[in-house]
């Protein structure tokens, strides 16, 4: 039976990028459908009526949404190049940190990104605390998964590179080499991984996009 795999994404969505990396790591052929978020296709709305977001993976006509759910689906379906270890405790640990990235780490960094002045100053400690927590997970390891990348690297990977964009746009250095030597090294190692470096969205385009996003937030937020 011919496999048909489609990925609905945008050029910049970091969540969709997770799926690109996972599919490419496992050598799965797929078709990309780029969505315009300001003008979502009827097909996207049909495939993800609950959240109406990208990414959506469609496998033989059946859609799966929510990037971490999609990653587990890919792992369950295609067994080559596993993203998760075999041991149940190690799997639980990986899932925990991937969820932490989405539930705590990302929102706290985002909050620093969309604020300025006093509000930003107050947001920074939480972001640093969360970065510290994840830095600890890298002790004695090249990647969160060990020698090769896995679920947590894929979950956090986009931030690993996007952080330089956010730092450029805000003028703030969040991940400095002195405070976060392991994260710094990890970002370096990550950017050497083929599927990651070959699929990173264009840097300049990202800078413009996030510049615009920050300006919008600052304009609509309370003046400081």
């Amino acid at each position, binding site marked *: 039976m011919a496999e048909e795999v489609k990925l609905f994404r945008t050029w910049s969505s970091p969540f969709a990028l997770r799926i690109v990396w996972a599919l490419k790591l496992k050598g799965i052929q797929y078709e990309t459908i780029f969505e315009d978020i300001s003008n979502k296709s009827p097909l996207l709305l049909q495939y993800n009526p609950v959240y109406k977001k990208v990414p959506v993976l469609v496998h033989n006509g059946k859609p*799966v949404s929510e990037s971490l*759910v999609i990653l*587990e689906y890919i792992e*369950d379906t295609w067994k080559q190049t596993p993203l998760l270890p075999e041991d*149940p*405790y190690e799997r*639980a640990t990986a899932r*925990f940190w991937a969820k932490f990235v989405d539930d705590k780490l990302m929102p706290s960094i985002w909050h620093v990104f969309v604020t300025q002045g006093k509000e930003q100053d107050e947001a920074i400690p939480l972001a640093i605390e969360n970065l510290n*927590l994840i830095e600890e997970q890298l002790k004695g390891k090249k990647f969160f998964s060990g020698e090769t990348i896995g679920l947590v690297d894929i979950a956090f990977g986009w931030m690993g590179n996007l952080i330089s964009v956010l730092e450029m746009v805000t003028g703030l250095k969040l991940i400095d080499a002195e405070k976060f030597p392991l994260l710094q090294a990890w970002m370096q190692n990550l950017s050497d991984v083929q599927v990651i470096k070959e699929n990173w969205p264009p840097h300049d385009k990202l800078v413009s996009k996030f510049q615009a996003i920050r300006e919008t937030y600052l304009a609509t937020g309370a003046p400081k």
Partner: protein
Amino acid sequence: MRMGGSESGSDLKLMGTKLSPFSYRIEWALQLKGIHYEFVEEDLKNKSSLLLQLNPVYKKVPVLIHEQKSLSESLIILEYIDETWKHNPILPKDPLERAHARFWAKFVDEKLYEAANKALFSVGEAEQAKANESMAEALQLVEGEMMRLTKGKTLFGGDGIIGYLDIVLGWVGYWFKFGEEAAGLNITTDSTKYPAFVSWTHHFLQLPLIKNNLPTPGELLRVSRLVMLRCGKITE
């Protein structure tokens, strides 16, 4: 065929409370698989140093300690239990069914949970109306999926068989009901709007495993009222 049998989970402790629906999820799962465990009751108003040490990130229950390794986050613990003790499986086998189960679990614990909290604890008429609508919408989404997810059986695991989504939805079918009562709401018991959900609740709460492992209505009403008093939603 469901195998009974009891297996001693060597060195297995569950830190939880007898009120938290998330803590009960783990008890249901362990008892479903016939695994012995030691229950360590936490006082959430005075968290033990052990809890804070084992779950420094979220500082919450439940925490499962197995062979001296600790795990937190109930959905992650459920998957761990399923992978460690393979009899009486909780999650479906098929990858797409697993994806649907995980997707809806996330929805129930995030969107539905947020809506439920707003419906129970919002203050003011306009806020309440908005909150009720959000809750109704979120529950309607679940209702719409129930036939497909249960495949027409009484529970998500099968006819009379507990599965992952049964365990996950438990708080909606029981805890929330008493919150509603305390708040004077009537959302989840509307069987004309939510026939599949109401039917599921009925079957779920009848299971001996569940029936014998729930806080009492009195306790839940009391706690709900306390929180509502504190946030100014109701007055004594």
